[in-house]
């Protein structure tokens, strides 16, 4: 089985992400396929598994960015599952992104229609920490 994925590169000075427009793919064995199938419905678990898998980091270091020292990247898409909202979230992001993060970070306001700016700011505070966990330092 193959996993298709896309990446973003992290600019530490600007604290911003940029899309790497290439779609990469890597072959996985049966064991890894079993793991993939178990985790594919749980986006962050899937992300962490791939980020921490030797076959994945080896592929990135050898095939994708072989000459980049101290490069920091993150995964933006895995087989169509998007993680882009973690890097490009903004106040005008679609409702589905708000709902996703409100659920993820257990954000509850007593007023049922949220002030987008307030909620957006709270999401961005959470994301400033979360993004650091998602970044893969290629060393």
């Amino acid at each position, binding site marked *: 089985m193959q996993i298709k994925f896309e990446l973003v590169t992290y600019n530490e000075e600007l604290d911003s992400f940029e*899309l790497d427009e290439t779609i990469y793919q890597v072959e996985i064995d049966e064991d890894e396929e079993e793991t993939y199938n178990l985790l594919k419905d749980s986006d962050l678990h899937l992300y962490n598994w791939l980020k921490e898998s030797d076959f994945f980091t080896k592929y990135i270091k050898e095939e994708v960015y072989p000459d980049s020292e101290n490069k920091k990247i993150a995964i933006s898409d895995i087989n169509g599952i*998007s993680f*882009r*909202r973690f890097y*490009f*979230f903004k106040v*005008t*992001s*679609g*409702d*589905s*992104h708000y709902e996703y993060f409100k659920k993820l970070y257990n954000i*509850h*306001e*007593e*007023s*049922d*229609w949220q*002030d*987008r*700016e307030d909620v957006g700011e709270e999401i961005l505070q959470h994301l400033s920490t979360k993004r650091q966990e998602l970044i893969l330092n290629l060393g």
Partner: protein
Amino acid sequence: MDHKYIAKMLSKMDEDLSKQGMSRRDAMKMAGITSVGMFMGGVTSASADDENKTVKSNAKGKIVIVGGGLAGMSTAARLTLNLSNPDITVIEPEELSVSYQPGQTLVGGGIWDESDIAYKRDDFTPDGVKVIKEKAILFNPQENKLTTDKGTVVSYDYLILATGLHLDFERIRGLEEAGRAMSAGDNERLLKGLGDDGICSIYTAKGATKTWEQMQKYIAQAKSGKKTQFLFTHPNTPVKCGGAPKKIMYLTNARLKEAGARENADLTFYPNGGAMFGVPEYHDAILGQFKREDFKWHYRHNLIEVDKEKKIAVFDAKWQEKGPWDPVLKDFEVIPKHEKVRVPYDFLHITPPQLAPREIAESDLGSSKGWVPVNKETLQHIRYENVFSLGDVAQVPMGKTGGSARKQYKVVVNNLIALMNGKALEAKYAGYTVCPLITDIGTVMLAEFDWTVKPTPSFPLDPTVERWMWWLMKIYLLKPMTVYGMLSGRA
């Protein structure tokens, strides 16, 4: 109320239950309820017994509770029951601090008098608890000290913040003179600021009496044949008792029907939110009631200004429009829009914006939003481990009701004593709250829910049905349970 009347009511309660195929006793039994005190929290008989066991701890330390309202005084009472040598000080300047706030809706609807809900702090101060009748205004949590408005410096080992919240009328343009208020007190400035020309609010005890006066005046106007506009608001901040803005609307409707004046009145609800209730099941039920009663409503309207002279309420109305396609996020952006909407009124019931008191918000104990940031389960401050908070001022979702406080104060007491003994904090608040939503004189829908945002009924009955028995509970049982049960630290 006499014993014959009560007997008649109870008989009707039995009648109501028998339609469900059960006796009163069976209903209580099935719900695991042992006494009226259990109505407000859905506690099972087993856990109620556990809760009432008082094995006193020898833990020592000076405990200061800022705020002697329902949450603070109940906490003080329960601590005295659970500590062998309690050293507890409550700081509370307001004489009527333990007044029964959930009854303000009933005062506003002319069912109770203000005297029915007025209770004095000094009558409910537990034996051995010291009271400083001053207001805490400066907090120094680094040195475990605070200072009152009269300059008294109070040190503590453990601090419990139960100050309640401020009703921020001054945020509404045109009502700046009304200032900020708390529920109890003479609130002379507030009443003067609101005037006598149709503006009212049940969010203070005095204001509730004024609401009933104004309500009668405009019901009489409708009865005279003049079309009369009744407006009810719900702000864009957290509020205590989220059901109250609707309860007073239902009671106004009931009084209009009673007077035979309903056809000359328009009742319109202007909530800041986009739903009637955060729990979908209750939202659907309330929407059905609104349609049945021919109410009007406009979502996402926040009251920002009142022109008292012209009798116009100005709302900030919000909506969203589809923005451009975002190729990176692969979704359309959402653009928030808003505009001012001017609405003429005859009777305007205001649910004011509500905030943490300034002295908390501006101290190191407050969060960026002002409320006291606590672990929502243990109720321990997120930065100062010897500080706990509960009630309206605690930054806990859905926590601003008497029903929530009733659950929270036991958690605070258990966890504080655990901390004093160097043990882990094991008691957890699960987010339970209850809103007995008055839908008419004689019917209440008992909306119980928690952080799952699902109905969590204590009784084996459909929680979305309005019932006479819940009305009886609201009118006759909850107040004694709160005033005598909770304030003694037992219920």
